[in-house]
């Protein structure tokens, strides 16, 4: 039995039997059982992923299984190659961290029962993980769609976990269900067109038949599939479910959705665009690049002004997925222009960023969950001072934030560096000097740069305002550190961040193998020469995260030594702070998340258009004496406000109109049936 078969068996059997066990064990043991089963399913995914990455030859699948007749419309076909492998690994690793974390997180709180500990919710988590793992392993349209839908449904159940506590959960569930099914329709239609043209529904048949499709049909397939996977990945303007569903789901589920599930949208895009369709014309790439750029910028801008910690992280997901899409899009542009080496670098950048994003977003969402569990708060304005109450959570959140802010020695920096290298070498590689490319690439670099800058602002705010300074509420002042299992879960993800941050070359060989699956960038091996130093093949670019980290540490040692000699080692005297003339410091004078982001809000006023609400209440005796002032600021999602209300209104009008057609009289329905049949016959008669 190969490693892949073994891993996937563990996943399938473990998830089904585990879910059964979770429903049967007494409530006391449920969190432990669910956590162990989820982590075990994750281990299965990691094993299968490693098998996929190691076992694959120069190209093609390492492992294939076909079960004819298992699904109603066709066979169930599973196949794992290196591209599947890297995403199996990603999903599995996130699941291990989230599973271990869930043991502590889903236990009942001190005062109330935890809805995340309910039988349904606990049993659904491993099923959700298993369905995610089978997405990259499925190799026919039917299998893929069934698993994809299973993933959507199980995650929907999990999003709705806390629906009794907050009405906003139901709203989030509705949005998520709507968006994910709109996406499913797009993907299904795209695959149907594809399969009809290619004459087969297995991925092998699609790959072989892709050349028979007319350019128009290929483009139709691409657009439909891009819309569908874009909705799952959270690309603008289909991102609207992310800032709703991620905050409302239990935090270990948020981590699974934001770090793992969203990446599968990227998987789907790469699989169809570069593997099954085998690349396309330049405008496909430009479209993906443009949508990615808008997503990155819009996501980070919204994140930089968010005050809800989990909402901030959700928008940051849109940002990072946007960066991945930029890599994929630019790769498409260069591949279409025949510059395969550069395309290889950019795809590698996108994949590396997917791994890095999964690592740091897991830490961040789990950290946010610990804060939520300890304080009941997601609002950064009311947090603060947690670094003393929850030191380990704060440190790990800091590691994740460093990665997300793309600063060395964090892991996000590495993949953004590769992405930038791929973009800036577009001129010196000189093959594609088409004006449209010459204009779009500098803008893309500017977008990546502004995204990086605003990303720093976002995570300085999230970490600084959330964890440092003085607590701004009693809940934050009395927070207690999380149980061991939660700390272990976060620690696993944090350690992965550190490894990917200083030794990204561990992923290098695997990524090179992934590229061999994709026809347009086969054998480019952009990271083949990397060891301590990340050296890009065929373009002049090298950077060593390890040496930078070591160098910084050395410099710090030298500085400490020198300062001790010059300045002595007397301990610092603890003194009061300058409290603006008051005798004591007042936590209300601290900057909150809202005020921290105020300059940015003002600079980007035209895009964000925040809504202010100021209420001044004077004393009854005199209008000059102010009793209280309340200030409220809301930054609504302007893209959503511009697009969705008209769309929903149109859908409602359409619904009303069709209701008039259906008035309940049977002979009218018979007439409709008759007309429909007639129309079908006319179409058949005309077209044959």
């Amino acid at each position, binding site marked *: 039995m190969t490693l892949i078969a073994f891993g996937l068996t563990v996943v399938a059997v473990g998830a089904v039997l585990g879910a059964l066990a979770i429903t049967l064990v007494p409530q006391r043991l449920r969190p432990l059982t669910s956590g162990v089963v989820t982590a075990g399913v994750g281990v299965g995914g990691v094993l299968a992923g490693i098998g996929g990455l190691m076992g694959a030859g120069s190209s093609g699948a390492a492992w294939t299984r076909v079960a004819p007749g298992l699904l109603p419309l066709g066979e169930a076909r599973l196949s794992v190659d290196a591209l599947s492998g890297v995403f199996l690994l990603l999903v599995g690793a996130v699941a291990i961290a989230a599973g271990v974390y869930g043991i502590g997180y889903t236990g009942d709180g001190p005062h109330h029962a935890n809805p995340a500990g309910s039988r349904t919710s606990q049993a659904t988590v491993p099923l959700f993980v298993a369905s995610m793992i089978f997405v990259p392993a499925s190799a026919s349209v039917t299998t893929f769609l069934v698993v994809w839908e299973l993933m959507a449904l199980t995650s929907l159940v999990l999003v709705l976990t806390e629906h009794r506590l907050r009405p906003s959960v139901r709203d989030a569930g509705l949005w998520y269900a709507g968006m994910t099914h709109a996406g499913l329709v797009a993907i299904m239609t795209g695959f149907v067109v594809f399969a009809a043209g290619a004459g087969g529904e297995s991925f092998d048949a699609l790959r072989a038949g892709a050349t028979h499709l007319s350019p128009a049909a290929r483009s139709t397939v691409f657009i439909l599939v891009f819309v569908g996977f874009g909705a799952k990945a959270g690309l603008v303007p289909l991102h609207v479910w992310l800032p709703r569903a991620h905050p409302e789901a239990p935090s270990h589920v948020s981590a699974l959705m934001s770090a793992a599930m969203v990446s599968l949208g990227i998987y789907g895009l790469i699989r169809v665009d570069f593997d099954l369709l085998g690349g396309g014309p330049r405008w496909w790439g430009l479209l993906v690049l443009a949508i990615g750029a808008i997503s990155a910028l819009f996501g980070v801008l919204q994140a930089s002004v968010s005050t809800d910690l989990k909402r901030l992280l959700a928008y940051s997901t849109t940002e990072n997925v946007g960066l991945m899409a930029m890599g994929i899009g630019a790769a498409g542009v260069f591949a279409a222009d025949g510059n395969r080496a550069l395309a290889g670098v950019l795809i590698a950048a996108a994949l590396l960023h997917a791994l890095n994003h999964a690592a740091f977003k897991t830490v961040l969402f789990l950290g946010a969950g610990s804060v939520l569990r300890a304080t009941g708060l997601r609002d950064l304005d009311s947090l*603060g*001072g947690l670094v003393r109450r929850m030191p380990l959570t704060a440190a790990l959140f800091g590691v994740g934030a460093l990665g997300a802010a793309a600063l060395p020695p964090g892991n996000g920096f590495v993949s953004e560096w590769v992405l930038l290298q791929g973009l800036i070498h577009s*001129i010196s590689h000189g093959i594609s000097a088409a004006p449209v490319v010459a204009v779009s690439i500098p803008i893309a670099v500017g977008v990546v740069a502004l995204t990086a800058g605003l990303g720093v602002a976002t995570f300085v705010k999230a970490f600084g305002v959330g964890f440092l300074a003085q607590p701004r509420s009693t809940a934050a002042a009395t927070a207690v550190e999380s149980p061991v299992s939660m700390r272990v879960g976060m620690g696993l993800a944090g350690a992965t961040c550190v490894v990917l941050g200083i030794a990204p070359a561990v992923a290098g060989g695997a990524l090179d193998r992934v590229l061999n699956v994709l026809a347009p960038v086969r054998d480019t091996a952009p990271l083949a020469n990397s060891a301590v130093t990340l050296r890009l093949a065929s373009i002049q670019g090298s950077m060593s995260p390890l040496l930078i980290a070591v160098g910084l540490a050395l410099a710090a040692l030298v500085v400490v030594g020198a*300062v001790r000699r010059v300045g002595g080692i007397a301990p610092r005297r*603890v003194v009061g*702070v300058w*409290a603006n003339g008051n005798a004591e410091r007042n936590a209300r004078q601290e900057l909150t998340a809202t005020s921290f982001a105020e300059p*940015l809000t003002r600079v980007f006023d035209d895009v964000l258009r925040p809504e202010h609400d100021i209420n001044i209440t004077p004393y009854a005796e005199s209008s000059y004496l102010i009793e209280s002032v309340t200030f409220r600021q809301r930054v609504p999602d302007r893209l959503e406000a511009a697009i969705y209300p008209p769309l929903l209104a149109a859908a409602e009008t359409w619904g009303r109109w069709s209701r008039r057609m259906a008035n309940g009289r049977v002979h009218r329905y018979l007439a409709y049936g008759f007309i429909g049949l007639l129309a079908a016959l006319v179409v058949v008669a005309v077209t044959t």
Partner: protein
Amino acid sequence: MTALETVGAVLAAGVQVALVVVGAPYLTGLMRQVRARLEGRAGAGVGQPVRDLRKLFRKEATRPEGTSVVFVAAPLILLASSVFLAAVVPFVSTVASVGGVSDLFAVVAILMLGTVALALAAIDTGTAFGGMGASREITIVALVEPTILLAIFALSVRVGSSDLTDIVAGTLAFPAQVLSPASLLAAVAFAVVIIAETGRLPVDNPSTHLELTMIHEAMVLEYSGRDLAMIELAASMRLALLLGLGVNLFAPWGVATSVAPLALLLGIVMLIVKVALVGVALAVFEVFMAKLRLFRVPELLAGSLLFALLAVAASYFLA
């Protein structure tokens, strides 16, 4: 690379660190003295920052109550990042002791790391001014980022690499490139970046005593003793580093391409002369400048972004 060259390169890196650590306070002193004279004051002398640092290092360090390890670690990170950059940026010689650390993107990111550490420490004090300074500093840094990266892009085009060593060596080999439109436009953009990153007029006033207009000074209000000395030293070093980076990117003459002692000596002398000249020019420029309102700064930065974008476009279409 021969063993001799490696030793020479390590030596050159050591020389650079010593030069920047010792020279940076004098550069700050020189700029203050030039300003003082132009404003009709006698000035405290070029050595005053050094005397200040010596005094501060001997004074007792304090720590506001309720601050965390971040407050203590920030000066260290800030100074360590500056020392690291002083070692790896090719100021004196283009022969690098280790490859893979002088990429310009990494250099910029490490500069930012120091800024972020200080901003977090400012938030950690929990005072209104600390938070305000951090918020303003981070806003400016975020908006400067596109200009820097696009300027790097424009500079990297002519040598096909974003590694500083390659860029400097490339310019030394083909000096005429300095006068290309792309290079000149990038130079203008980079000048604005230096002013914004080091907190000079018109973006921030380094000698302000009015809390409401402070950016950098507001962040360090709670520091004292050796911690403040570290921050002051690091601030001077960052100014010297960025000026040195600027002159070597656009006028690298004198930078040694070997590790021969004479070439290194010439490199050191040329670096001191060039940085001093640019520093004086910056000081003179500042005398005639008023501080911009904070919310006019983005307009300045947008202007510099335009220059950087034009630089890249020029390198595409005029190359």
